């Protein structure tokens, strides 16, 4: 069965979500992945938004985390303080998995979603942290969506918006951050993880039709490719769920 790269990325992310996880979502592909997980791997996962809506019943895809669609039939509609406390608080925070995106990522999973070039006079200005830095600071596991391009995988990010493993092993803790950090980077070419010892990114899976070598050509820094295996494409059932249940209006996919 034919599938698009965005469908592949969505399914790769959905498979990372476990039953019972509390999923911190943005919009777009991250939300579609979280919605798909509820049908596939994690029926008891809970979607929540930084605006304060918890366990929203998403009959339609929200275009923003403040969309009235996240308010419908939620367990509670609070505000920003409640949402971020859910992640900073260890009782609930340890159950949260975050899904983020960025303009740049380095080998330790540090993210830039603020500016390319000089911070004060940027070549390109982006939206800024929003809640991304808070999520990356607080929660034990994060998935990151990226487009695989050289300039998006630089040796050093132009502005460090959201912390990954900072400068390597032990540096999160030394800086004052809670343990945790990114668990997977999902791109249009493959899925990367972080080595338990060195905290450096390595290639775990490449998609059918691409090669580890091609992935390296799309990165400024080198990653270990010796552990890489070919990813399993989305199944017929997974695609059916995406197309018929999650995004029938084709707003995102």
């Amino acid at each position, binding site marked *: 069965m034919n599938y698009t790269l965005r469908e592949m990325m969505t399914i790769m992310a959905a498979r990372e979500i476990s039953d019972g996880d509390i999923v911190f979502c943005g*919009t*777009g592909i991250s939300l579609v992945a979280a919605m798909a997980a509820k049908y596939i791997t994690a029926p008891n996962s809970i979607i929540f938004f*930084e*605006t*304060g*809506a918890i366990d929203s019943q998403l*009959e*339609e895809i929200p*275009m*923003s*985390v*403040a*969309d*009235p*669609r*996240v*308010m*419908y039939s939620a367990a509670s*509609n*609070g*505000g*920003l*303080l409640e949402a*971020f406390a859910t992640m*900073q608080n*260890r009782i609930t925070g340890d159950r949260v998995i975050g899904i983020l995106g960025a303009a740049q990522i380095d080998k330790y999973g540090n993210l830039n979603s*603020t500016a390319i070039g000089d*911070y*004060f*006079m*940027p*070549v*390109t*200005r*982006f*939206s*800024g*942290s*929003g*809640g*991304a*830095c*808070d999520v990356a*600071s*607080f929660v034990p596991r994060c998935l990151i969506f990226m487009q695989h391009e050289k300039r998006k995988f630089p040796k050093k990010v132009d*502005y*460090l*918006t*959201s*912390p990954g493993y*900072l400068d390597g092993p032990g*540096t*999160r*803790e030394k*800086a*004052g*951050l*809670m343990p945790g950090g990114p668990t997977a980077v999902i791109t249009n070419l493959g899925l990367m993880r972080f080595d338990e010892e060195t905290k450096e990114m390595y290639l775990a899976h490449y998609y059918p039709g691409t090669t580890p070598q091609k992935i390296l050509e799309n990165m400024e820094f080198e990653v270990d490719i010796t552990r890489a295996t070919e990813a399993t494409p989305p199944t017929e059932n997974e695609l059916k769920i995406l197309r018929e249940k999650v995004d029938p*209006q084709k*707003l995102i996919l």
Partner: protein
Amino acid sequence: MSADQGKVMALDEAIRSYVKDGCHISIGGFTLSRNPMAAVYEIIRQRIRGLHCYAHSNGTGVDELVGGGCISKLEIAYGGNAKSAPTCIRFKTAIQRGEIRFEDYTNYQMALRFHAGAMGVPFITTRSSFGTDIVNKWGFSKEMREKDPKIPDNKLVVLDNPFGNWGNASKVILIPAINPDVTIIHVQKADKFGTCRMMGLAYADVDQAKAARNVIVTCEELVDSEELRAQPEFNQIPFIHVSAVVPIPFGAYPTACYRYYDYDPQYLSQHSVFAKNDKLYREYLDKFIFSVKDHQGLLDLVGKVQLEKIKADPRTGYATGLDRK
């Protein structure tokens, strides 16, 4: 202001009274929901200048204030507005051209800063942003801070936990309180004295209001105090915080107002086309803001047919099945 009338005012009068050139301001709502847009457009219409604006993710409203030339300093966590403008376009343009001073925070930090302001404490703590450029890069220099009594002398301060390892934290980040001169919010219901009932998500509106010297409330419906006081547990802001109440149906348009109307995807996507081009954006401001007398004038240009399309379904609180492509 007579006792009968309470604090009810016309919007132009409320803006003229409380929003002055150079004042420190915050607006309620989040990205494309419940922004006080009628008030934002009136600020632009009155050509108020030099505002110092505090924002978490106040997408549509802040972007229009930037585009309208009203803001000169901006403390912000997020300048994005969903699909039609992943980065708010006038915000992006103003920063890339060096037209405004700006400083970046996180959403939690901005929400906490308003909370500290509402509590009357000088700072509050969090464990967010250690080791990042949010701590390391200041948009406002030390020198500028020390000269301006309305800005704290530091951006963020990292402190060793004075309680040892209590709370399993070796360090905390201190973030300074915000007390705006004026906060403007749009709510579903208010009475003439300013008691507010919001529906759906409150974002950080309550703290933004309570932290401010003056608060302008615009509302979909002006209702009797008895109606709100019959269920006080559903009211978020009591009248003691509020300076002015302005009833304006569709006062959040083109952003959404839960249980009343959706955001207008057509207006917002058209807007992003205008916003990308200086000339088109000037023409847009002329047509929709400067050439009309008030918010009703803008709504008349949009037309009843379009407003009917975004009317909320009573079951879901939004316009079910609305074409949002």
